[in-house]
């Protein structure tokens, strides 16, 4: 049903848009059960399906797949490397409550469920009906060839609603939502391999693209501004 809808969008568009829709179709076909559009159908933001944002990114970590899986499976770990999240609380093995940093200090929260869990291999989740920003994701943990650690491959999709909230969400994720997720994965690698997000004097909050463009000088923070 939703794939058919995307198929119609495909027929209507050309050039870059057409390519993006093609990729979206492929990813949604890949996510199967956690199809964001399916999530949307149950939600209120029906019109948002047109603005579906999706991405697929990967990082290689120097740990066994089991360890990377175990860290991610404890969803409460996610805010340690996903900086737009304030907290994730696991209600039980399947359901969880997520709180994201919203614009102007307001936070956005939603409930999510795990829809597919293959220990040490992959994990898929999606937001439950009622989420203001319906979203879904899947992460796969694939042993890299020749003992090169684990390839962590993430598919994410979200559908910003129309109106003011939509604009605020777009602002939160910046012009390049992919960059945000890429930075998340870099931090995931740092936390998994070194134990923490790595900080420097010019970048006391760790990796972030925005910060790289507006760096403070490389000298210690003053006493008042320390963490």
């Amino acid at each position, binding site marked *: 049903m939703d794939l058919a809808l995307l198929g119609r969008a495909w027929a209507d568009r050309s050039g870059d848009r057409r390519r993006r829709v093609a990729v979206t179709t492929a990813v949604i076909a890949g996510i199967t059960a956690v199809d964001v559009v399916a999530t949307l159908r149950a939600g209120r933001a029906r019109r948002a399906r047109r603005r579906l944002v999706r991405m697929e990114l990967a990082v290689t970590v*120097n740990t066994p797949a089991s360890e990377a899986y175990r860290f991610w499976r404890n969803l409460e770990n996610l805010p340690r490397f996903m900086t737009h999240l304030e907290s994730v609380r696991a209600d039980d093995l399947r359901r969880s409550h997520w709180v994201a940093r919203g614009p102007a200090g307001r936070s956005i929260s939603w409930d999510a469920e795990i829809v597919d869990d293959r220990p040490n291999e992959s994990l898929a989740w999606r937001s439950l009906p009622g989420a203001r920003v319906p979203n879904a994701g899947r992460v796969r943990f694939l042993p890299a060839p020749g003992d090169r650690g684990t390839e962590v491959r993430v598919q994410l999709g979200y559908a910003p609603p129309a109106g003011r909230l939509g604009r605020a969400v777009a602002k939160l994720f910046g012009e390049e939502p992919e960059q945000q997720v*890429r930075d998340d994965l870099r931090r995931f690698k740092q936390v998994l391999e*070194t*134990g923490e997000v*790595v900080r*420097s004097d010019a*970048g006391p909050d760790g990796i972030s693209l925005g910060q790289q463009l507006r760096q403070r*000088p490389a000298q*210690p923070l003053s006493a008042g501004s320390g963490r």
Partner: protein
Amino acid sequence: MKATTWVGKDKVKVVDVPDPKIMNSRDAIVKISSTAICGSDLHLYHGYIPAMREGDILGHEFMGEVVEVGPEVGNLAVGDRVVVPFPIACGRCRSCQQGLFSVCENSNPNAGFAEKLMGHSPAGIFGYSHLTGGYAGGQAEYARVPFADVGPLKVPDEVPDDQALMLADIFPTGYMGAEMCDITPGDVVAVWGAGPVGLLAAASARLLGAERVIVIDRYPYRLRLAADRAGAEVLNYEETDVLDALNELTAGRGPDACIDAVGLEGHHGNAAMYAYDRAKQAARVETERPFALREAILACRSGGVVSVIGAYGGFVDKFPMGAFMNRSLIMRTGQCHVQRYTRPLLERIRRGEIDPSFVISHHLPLKDAAKGYQIFQKKQDDCTKVVLKV
């Protein structure tokens, strides 16, 4: 605390800044006793490395006493005397575990920025621009040392600061430059640049069994050091045609290995060649003046090794790819993986095989850092290496 900060092109200033604090649990804070100015600091000083900010604390060669450790640092205690390698390395990523510490995959918080310029990111480096992490440097009274459980090496009391400090960068860098040459008996090794790194590369090539070492520079006082302290033959490129002379010395074979210890701010005996690259560099069309590299490639015997330890930041022009490809040359390069070399080289110092402090020409107090940069830059007063005492 007092710290040496970059103010702008050709300008540094010692100013008061806040003391560093522990930011990660594997950090240590070191109270610095000795810190050196490096040739690559001059590249920053001259503004050839991108991404400097006014107020950045300079310095990547320093040592001192541990005054604070984070909760995850089990191998160091307050009061330990340590020398700190210049690349910041986590010790746990695959690169670190293969001994490639200067390309640690986790230590550069600005990796995304570096990737845009270099494809992939190198490690973070102390006091070496925002491209390599925006870490405060060690030409200061104190420094924060991340991954202190991996990098810092404890120095025994009987090894003086001047010897131990050379382990932060230039002795391992020179040594790695020689090691990359795969020296076998009978080898002739030529070294471009008789700065501190070139001198220590020459001395290391001798330690590793080179039959003859030839050092090329234009400053007679530096060439004297190469001859007297590194056991090298010397060529002054302002007086000699280097390619002819090297062919003459090796009966036409060419050196078996050539080390570029000059990097991006080379000089050339031929005024027109120098003017060409200097003009392009000034216009920022080209970021480097790669004379030494070009000449090393042309000089090297067919099938030989060109070992590049001089620092580069961006792009080079007129790279003699034809010579490089048609004559089966091998190029090896890298920022030094210092953590790999500190222990074995400390042992060589203790056994009296080498005293790397022979390259030091000046000691100044930290407050005179600006003067140190000036005399080093202008090669005044036979300056080879400036150590700042804190």
